[in-house]
């Protein structure tokens, strides 16, 4: 029984090495030529406590988790029901537990999954330095068809420093698990990858975000740590240092946003990363960057809100604050990544947009894609390198106009150090020179200019990713964004496979809106399903505000932290066409 993809969970309490086991499995899958997606979940304890690693493997790129898991491998049962909502199981699923830890708790058995026992503790106990999690890995590998050689290579890499004995102990336990799997009921296997599966990367969304801004040209980062954005910063700090940039840990988010304003005013492309609570604190100064026309990038790795909410879990509910959060009329850019690897494209593009238009660009990613690790096709090289229109030499006898009226709305920017072009950048309303003005005419002129530069820019095709069913687009569109794109893509695939026709529009450029492009994309569409992970349907409301949607538009929205399963979206499509 082979399948296109296999999904499994390894769960257990902190000491059980769940997260290590998941990582080893991911690495081994990579060696085997597979693609994969791994997410993690853990309890409220700061350290230790229960954890679960959710993995999905396939022979092609994995965009989303599946609707349910084929296998739950429980190293023990401690607090495991905390995860039951996150680990959907069906009657076909298999729970494998260790009899040494007793019975599976009832909370897991709602849909009567199959159950089997694997005496991990016992088996490991018989091996010197043998650990139950390696036994579990062996069993998993056997069950899903992962070649033992791949795991051997990974364990060698990982335990090199611990020496040969450690490697052997691990592999002995692993092989004992492989052997024990013979007694376990079957779950779908993945086929071996025939030839080369192409150049691939192993990367998390947060790392891709960091790489994207460096690729785009950012060389100054100031930030204050916050879950789940911290890993962006932790990746950036040493990486920036390697390419001649720097990261400064600021005293708070008010400082970090203003530090990057200062650096960018000084001519160095700059960014910060945060999450909802931190973004809230940056709102005033984002308005300053709009008014003073200072380019910068702010990444919001969204978590569950409101307020402190659930710091370690995902939601798409910062759309409103990102789009509408600034006081006054303050046109700026909002873009959103739609997958782990798209974090790279979207942040790099964001730097490009910010620099080209001298405007702050907000990038929305989220905990789900930020903290997930994926094996993905090697991302393409991109031409987007932030490039500012800088002022040329001063004209004798002509005073430099920092906020000169131009057709594009973009005014050449003088960078400190350039002689003859000194000026004061100002968050007060101003005239073309930057001199404060309270005249309605200056206000209107500058407002027009600041919005014109965004509306007249050529965003190319990147405003959205658009995909049709193989057999054509039909008359039904799914409009979605960010992390909901993965399950929506898979829903579209399944719908197509069943003969359905639909179009998927995943909006990357949230603001400014693109009414003409959307109108073209919706040409011939009679029905629209809007999919998003927010309690109030923020994206749906925003679409209504700015786009003309067909009368038959439905909003599929749910608050976090549970992601949509592809099946949930497919169900809507199918029910609708029925």
């Amino acid at each position: 029984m082979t399948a296109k993809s296999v999904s499994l969970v390894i769960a257990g309490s902190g000491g059980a090495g769940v997260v290590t086991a998941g990582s080893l499995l991911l690495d081994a899958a990579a060696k085997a030529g597979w693609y994969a997606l791994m997410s993690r979940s853990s309890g409220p304890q700061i350290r230790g406590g229960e954890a679960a690693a959710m993995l999905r493997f396939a022979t092609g790129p994995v965009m989303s988790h599946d609707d349910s898991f084929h296998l739950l491998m429980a190293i023990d049962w401690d607090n495991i029901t905390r995860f039951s909502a996150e680990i959907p199981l069906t009657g076909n699923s298999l729970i494998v537990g260790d009899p040494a830890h007793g019975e599976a708790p009832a909370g897991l058995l709602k849909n009567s999954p199959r159950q089997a026992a694997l005496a991990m503790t016992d088996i490991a106990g018989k091996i010197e330095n043998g650990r139950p999690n390696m036994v579990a890995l062996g069993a998993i590998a056997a069950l899903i068809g992962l070649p033992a050689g791949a795991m051997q290579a990974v364990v060698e890499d990982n335990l090199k420093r611990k020496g040969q004995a450690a490697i052997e102990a691990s592999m002995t336990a692993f092989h004992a698990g492989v052997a024990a799997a013979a007694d376990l009921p079957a779950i779908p296997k993945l086929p071996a990858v025939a030839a080369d599966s192409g150049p691939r990367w192993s990367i998390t969304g947060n790392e891709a975000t960091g790489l994207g801004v460096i690729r785009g040209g950012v060389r100054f980062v100031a930030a204050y740590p916050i879950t789940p954005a911290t890993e962006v910063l932790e990746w950036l700090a040493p990486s920036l240092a390697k390419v001649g940039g720097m990261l400064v840990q600021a005293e708070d988010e008010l400082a970090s946003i203003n530090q990057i304003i200062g650096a960018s005013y000084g001519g160095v492309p700059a960014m910060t990363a945060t999450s909802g609570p931190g973004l809230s604190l940056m709102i005033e100064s984002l308005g300053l960057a709009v008014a003073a026309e200072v380019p910068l990038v702010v990444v919001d790795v969204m978590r569950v809100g409101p307020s402190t909410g659930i710091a370690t879990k995902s939601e798409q509910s910062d759309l409103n604050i990102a789009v509408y959060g600034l006081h006054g009329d303050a046109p700026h850019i909002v873009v959103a990544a739609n997958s782990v690897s798209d974090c790279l494209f979207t942040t790099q593009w964001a730097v490009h947009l910010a620099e080209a238009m001298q405007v702050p660009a907000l990038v929305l990613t989220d905990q789900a894609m930020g903290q997930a690790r994926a094996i993905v096709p090697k991302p393409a090289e991109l031409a987007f390198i932030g490039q500012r229109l800088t002022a040329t030499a001063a004209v004798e006898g002509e005073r430099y106009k920092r906020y000169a009226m131009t057709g594009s709305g973009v005014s050449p920017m003088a960078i400190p150090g350039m002689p003859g072009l000194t000026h004061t950048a100002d968050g007060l309303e101003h005239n073309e020179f930057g001199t404060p003005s309270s005249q309605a005419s200056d206000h209107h002129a500058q407002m027009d200019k600041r919005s014109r530069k965004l509306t007249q820019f050529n965003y190319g095709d990147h405003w959205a990713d658009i995909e049709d069913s193989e057999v054509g687009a039909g008359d039904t569109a799914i409009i979605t964004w960010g992390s909901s794109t993965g399950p929506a893509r898979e829903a579209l695939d399944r719908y197509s496979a069943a003969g359905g026709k639909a179009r998927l529009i995943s909006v990357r450029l949230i603001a400014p809106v693109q009414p003409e492009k959307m109108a073209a994309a919706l040409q011939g569409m009679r029905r629209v399903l809007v999919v998003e992970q927010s309690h109030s349907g923020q994206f749906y409301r925003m679409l209504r505000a700015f786009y003309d949607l067909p009368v038959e538009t439905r909003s599929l929205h749910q608050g976090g932290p549970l992601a949509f399963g592809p099946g949930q979206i497919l169900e809507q499509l199918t029910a609708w066409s029925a």
Partner: protein
Amino acid sequence: MEAVAKKKYAAKDYKSDLKPIWCPGCGDYTVLNSITRALAELALPPEQVAVVSGIGCSSRIPAYTSVYGFHGVHGRALPVATGLKLARPDLTVLVTGGDGDGFSIGGNHFLHACRRNVDLTYIVMDNQVYGMTKGQASPTTAPDWEGSKLTPEGTGINPFQPLVVGLASGANFIARVSSSDPINMAKIIVEAIRHPGFSLVQVLSPCVTFRPEQAEWRDIVRTAVVDYTDDAARAARRLMTDDGFNVGKVLFKGSRPPFRPEFENSNGSVAELEARFAL
């Protein structure tokens, strides 16, 4: 280029044509004069200097100079200047502002700027009032000042001691000057700019409109009798016991090296970073 004689500058070369919005007689006029005079003394090309500020009467200074200026939001001048100086160590960066901007809404950045010790010169025009918003008590206002409708019985709160807190937080250079002595103020600003690390200059700069009684300051201030110390504990004792009117001298000079993140290797390529992700 070495042979080229250093260009001479006059104070007026650092002034813009803009007419200040300040009230006639405001102490900030002389501060502006002293800053431009100091820049001339240092003969810094205007384009190599940046003045950063927040919001307030005193925070209007950048636009009145002819150097690069940044007029940000209320209370956030220090982080803007920090980012600018770290990104552009070649520039001379001054920060100007008021007691409200710096010690009320901006208090946290003040603490951490002192501590971080980036090479900035922070000139605070202390008039013990929010001038711009028409006269409310600031952190440095005496507890019994009843001039604001917001605190009609006075604030009842001990005034903030900027120099003591600055010292306690790690400022590397501390001076107090009076706007009634612009020549000396210019001299001290020159010293502050030359001193590496974070330099704090408190200027007693009267608000003639909302604190007309401050006109007396010109008569009350006296030149501090002792010279500066480099011993923070000693400076603390002096500052905690002085009455705030000892002016005209540097009060503390530390020798901490300025903050400047240094990295092992800056010659790496983005490709090397990417290579780490490749399978």
